[in-house]
């Protein structure tokens, strides 16, 4: 069987790659994709702990299911916002979208 810490390290690596993407990308859609990477890393972690600690209880799986719901809502609203901004400003560069910046 695969040791639990392999899963944890995989998910940590995926999370850090996603975090790097969120910070450095200069395209809102690319940032959204990097957030998806981070959400997937969280789900790997939740399911790994569910598998290795409480496979009989459904708690870990239920939490992972809620992450799915949040991810779907986030993508829908995020892409809608990006599309609305793009139609108005003709750009998706977060550094040029500075209407709310002081």
């Amino acid at each position, binding site marked *: 069987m695969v040791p639990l810490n392999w899963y944890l390290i995989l998910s940590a690596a*995926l999370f850090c790659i996603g975090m790097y993407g969120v910070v450095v990308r200069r395209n809102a859609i690319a940032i959204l994709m990097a957030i998806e990477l981070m959400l*997937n890393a969280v789900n790997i972690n939740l399911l790994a702990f569910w598998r290795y600690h409480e496979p009989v209880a459904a708690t870990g799986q239920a939490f992972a299911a809620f992450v799915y719901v949040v991810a779907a809502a986030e993508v829908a609203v995020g892409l809608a916002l990006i599309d609305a901004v793009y139609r108005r400003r003709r750009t998706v560069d977060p550094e040029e979208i500075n209407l709310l910046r002081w």
Partner: protein
Amino acid sequence: MTAQQALFLLFGVITLGAALAVVVGRNLFHTALWLLLVFFGVAGIYVLLEAPFFAAAQLFIYMGAIGILIIFGVMLTRRVMRQPLPRANEQWWLAAIMAVALLGVLAWLAWQQPWTAAAAAVPENSISLLGLALVDPEGFALPFEVASVLLVMALIGAVMIVRER
């Protein structure tokens, strides 16, 4: 090394390699395709974790719905799609240091912790247990309903935001 560990390494390499391609690629459309490969690799990991429901949901929801939605998003911002993505911002090296440092700390924590080695077997009916827990008032019935309302509100809100005025 057992077959499971070999498969884990295979899916792990697929996932992390594609994830790196997602965050450094210069072509937004190709980046979206790499993201689909990440979702596929994670689905393989879920199979190894004996979570068949999530492996299937990963393929349907992530690769099917979210992946296609992102590709639509890429295509709707067409002028951006045609030109290569702008370079990473000036602080990319700082972000890289932070990411590697965070990875180092998390990996060290995961490595030196004596996790329980042997896990109990997953019950045969783990999917129906999950389904029951989601509608059980003692379990997750309320969070489940709240999540449903959240999703509906997010979708209605998305439609409101993109509506032509």
